[in-house]
C-alpha cells in the first residue's frame, strides 16, 4: 500500500476497512462458502455506496475519485479486500465500469449507473479454455453480419457471470480484437459454474453459440479494440496485485503474532533464529511486493510508457513470492495452518486465485522479456 496517503485517502481506506471488518468477519466468509453468489446483494450495494465501483468512472457518468487519481484510490479498496479476503466482484465490475465510462455514448447509462450504485453486476469475459488459455490468447469469434455481430466461443473463468446482467466479451474479428456488451439472457449463452479455491469468489464457464446481437452492442471499434483490451488488462492486474498484497500483509501479521504467542521447548517461536530469518525473508518479499504494486499502479494511472513492464513485474513477483510467503505462513503455523478452522487459508486462497488469473508469473516473466527486447531494438 502507498506509504504517503493523504488524510482523505486514509479516511477512505479506513471506511472500507471498518465496513469489511464488521460485515464480513471470518465467520461470515465461512458461511458464504455455500452461498451461490458468494456475497449478499445488500452487502455489495452498501459497499458501492462507499465508492467501490465509482473510482474509474468519470464524473459525468456519476463516478469520481478521492485524490484525483481514481486508480490509486481503488488500490486502497483492493488492498482492504485482500486484508479481509472480502467477497464481491471487485475486478470485473470495475473493469466493465471503466470500459463503459470510456466508450459509452449514452446507450449504457443505466447499466453504468447500476454498476456504480452496486445494484447491477457485470463481468469481463477475457480468458479462454485450453488450448487457448495462455495470457493474451483470444480465439473467441465476433463476426459481423449486416447490422449484427455473432459470437461463437467459450470464455473461462468468468467471475460472477451468474450474477451478471451483462458480459463484456473480448473476441477476435479477423486480425483484430473487438468487444461486445451482451446481456446474459441473450439466446445462445449458457453459464456453467466452476469449482474454485476461493471461498467467496465465483467463476463460471460461459459458452456463446451463435449469439446474435445488434452491432450497437459493440464497445469501441470493431477489430480495433486491442488498446482498450490492453488497458483493461492493466487495470485488472493493478487491482489484483493490490488485493494480493493486502492478503499477504494480513497473513504475515497473523503469523508474526503467532510466532510471539506460541511456545515450544519453553521459548516463543519468534526466538528461534531459523524462524527469525524466515520472517526476515518474508518481510522483504512483502515490502518488495508493496513497492512494485504501488509503482505499477502509478505507472498505469499516469499512462507511463513503462506501465506494461512494471505491471508484469508486479504480477510476476507478487504471484511467485506471494505464494512463497503464504506457504511459509502455513508452514510456521504447523498442522493448524492446514485446517479449515484456522484463518490463514482465507488469505492464501485469495492470493492463489490472483496468482493464476490474468497470466501466471512465468507468463509475465516472458512478457517482460518481449517488452525489453522491443525497447532495446527501438533504442
Amino acid at each position, binding site marked *: 500500500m502507498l506509504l*504517503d496517503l493523504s488524510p482523505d485517502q486514509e479516511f477512505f481506506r479506513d471506511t472500507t476497512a471498518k465496513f469489511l471488518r464488521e460485515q464480513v468477519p471470518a465467520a461470515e466468509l465461512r458461511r458464504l462458502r455455500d452461498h451461490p453468489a458468494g456475497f449478499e446483494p445488500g452487502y455489495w450495494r452498501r459497499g458501492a455506496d462507499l465508492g467501490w465501483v465509482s473510482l474509474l468512472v468519470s464524473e459525468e457518468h456519476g463516478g469520481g475519485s478521492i485524490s484525483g487519481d481514481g486508480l490509486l484510490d481503488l488500490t486502497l479498496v483492493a488492498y482492504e479486500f485482500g486484508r479481509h479476503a472480502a467477497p464481491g466482484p471487485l475486478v470485473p465490475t470495475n473493469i466493465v465500469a471503466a470500459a463503459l465510462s470510456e466508450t459509452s455514448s449514452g446507450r449504457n447509462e443505466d447499466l453504468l449507473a447500476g454498476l456504480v450504485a452496486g445494484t447491477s453486476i457485470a463481468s469481463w469475459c477475457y480468458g479462454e479454455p485450453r488450448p487457448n488459455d495462455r495470457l493474451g490468447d483470444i480465439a473467441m469469434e465476433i463476426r459481423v453480419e449486416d447490422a449484427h455481430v455473432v459470437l461463437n466461443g467459450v470464455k473461462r473463468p468468468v467471475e460472477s457471470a451468474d450474477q451478471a446482467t451483462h458480459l463484456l466479451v473480448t473476441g477476435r474479428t479477423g486480425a483484430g480484437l473487438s468487444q461486445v456488451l451482451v446481456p446474459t439472457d441473450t439466446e445462445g449463452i449458457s453459464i456453467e459454474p466452476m469449482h474454485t479455491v476461493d471461498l467467496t469468489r465465483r467463476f463460471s464457464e460461459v459458452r456463446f453459440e451463435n449469439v446474435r446481437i445488434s452491432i450497437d452492442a459493440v464497445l469501441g471499434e470493431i477489430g480495433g479494440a486491442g488498446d482498450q483490451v490492453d488497458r483493461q488488462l492493466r487495470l485488472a492486474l493493478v487491482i489484483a496485485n493490490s488485493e494480493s498484497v493486502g492478503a499477504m500483509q494480513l497473513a504475515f501479521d497473523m503469523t508474526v503474532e503467532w510466532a510471539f504467542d506460541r511456545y515450544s521447548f519453553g521459548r516463543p517461536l*519468534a526466538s528461534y533464529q531459523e524462524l527469525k530469518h524466515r520472517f526476515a525473508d518474508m518481510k*522483504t518479499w512483502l515490502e*518488495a511486493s508493496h513497492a512494485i504494486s504501488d509503482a505499477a499502479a502509478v505507472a498505469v494511472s499516469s499512462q507511463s510508457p513503462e506501465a506494461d513492464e512494471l505491471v508484469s513485474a508486479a504480477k510476476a513477483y507478487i504471484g511467485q513470492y506471494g505464494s512463497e510467503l503464504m506457504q511459509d505462513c502455513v508452514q510456521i503455523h504447523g498442522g493448524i495452518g492446514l485446517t479449515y478452522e484456522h484463518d490463514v487459508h482465507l488469505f492464501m486462497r485469495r492470493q492463489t486465485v490472483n496468482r493464476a488469473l490474468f497470466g501466471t508469473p512465468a507468463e509475465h516473466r516472458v512478457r517482460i*522479456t518481449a517488452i525489453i527486447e522491443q525497447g532495446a531494438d527501438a533504442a
Partner: protein
Amino acid sequence: MTIDETTHELLDEHEDLESFRQRARTWIRANLRVVEPGKSREGVLRNDRNDEEELAGVAREREVQRMLFDAGLAGICFPTAYGGRGLSPAHQEALNEELVGYEYPARLQAPTIAPCAAVLLDFGTEEQKLRHIPAILKGEELWMQFLSEPSGGSDVAGALATAVRDGDEWVLNGSKVWTTGAWWSDWGLCLARTNWDVPKHRGLSVFMLPIHQPNIEVHRIEMLNGSKEFCQEFMTDVRVPDTDRIGDVDDGWTVGIRWMFHERMLHNSSYVTIPSGDAHAGIGNESVLQTARASGHLDDPRVRDLVGEARMLNRVGEELHRRVAQGVVSGAMSDQSAAVGRLFSGVTSARTTSIVFEIVGADGAAWTDGDDGAIAEIGNDFLMRQVSCIGGGTTEMARNVISERVLGMPRERTLDREVAFRDVPRSPSSAS
C-alpha cells in the same frame, strides 16, 4: 582547475527541480563521456584491469568528481556550509536519472560518500566537517572503512584493534580488513577499542587517519578470481591526534550504529550519486539481455523466462529501495529498515549471477580470448557470486536486524553483553 566561485554563488539553494534537471542534463552532455553500450558491465568484481589501468580509472574519477563539484552538481544533499548544494533527495534522484549512460565517479561513492562522509556529517565536529567534507566532494580525499577485522566479520563491535591514549594523541595497534582499494585511498574511518574493562559496545571509539603513513602496512588480498582490490591493513603504533576522534571516547558504538545504517543504505542513500538502475552491485541492468543475445539463445523459452526474471527482480529492487528510502526519510519506517533493502540486493544479485551463468551454458566453464564481456569470465562471476551476500554486512546479519529490530523478535543469546570485553571468549586461533 579552480573552483568556479561564480557558478556556486549564482546557484540558488532552492533551485527548483526542473531547472536543476535541465542544468544537470546540459552540463552532463557537454562534459561527461558516454559509456559505450555493452561496456558498462563489469561483472562481479572482475579482475580485468592491471594496476596502471586501475590507478588511471581512479584519477579520472577524482577528476570527474571535481568537475561535478565545480559545476554545482556534487554533494546535492550535503549542506552548503560544507560545499554541498543543500538540495532535496528528489534533486539527487534527478541527477541520477540524467547520468544514465554517462561516466560517473563510481569509486568515490561507496564507501567515501556513504557511509564515511555521511558519518562525518552526523558526528564530526564543525572543524572536522569543514576540513574533510568539501575535500571529499572535490574528489581530493578517498575514504575507506577500517571496520572489519580478521578476528570476526559480522561481530563488528567485537573490534580488537586498540587505541590507547597518550597525552593529546592516541596510539593505535591492530589489523583491519576488507577495505576495497585501500592501496589507492587516502583516509580511513577506524573503529577501535579504547576500553577493555567494560562490555564490548561501551568501550569503542571512532578515529580518522591517513592510510599512507609509515606505521600502516597495506596488504592486498588476492580473491579467488585474481582480483586484488580488497586489502588488509596492519597498524603498528599509529599516532592519531585527539582532534581526529569522531564522537565521544568509549561512545563509538553510537557512531557505529549510524555508520552501519549508512552502509546498508549505500547506493540508495540520497548522498550518493549513481546512474539510476545501476544501484545494485554486480551484474547490471542491461547485461542479462545482452548476454542472452550474445549466447544466441534469446529465442529459447527457458532463456526468455530467465531474462524476464532478472529484469523483474531488478525493477522490484529499484522500487523497494525507493520505498525504503522514502519510508526512512518520512519516518514511516525505522532506520533499521535499510536492512530490508540490503537483504533484497544481496539475494537478488546472487540470483542474477546464477541466471547469467545458466544462460551461457558451457561457456560458463570455458571461453576464449575471442569471447567478449557478455560471455567471457561469467564462470568467474559465478564463483564470486556470494560477494553480494557478504560484502557490506552479510545477509544473515541483515536477517537478524530485520527480525530483531524491525519486527521486534527476541535477540539472539550472546555471551558478551554484561561482561568486560577482556573476559569475552574469543576464537582460540584469534591473532591478537
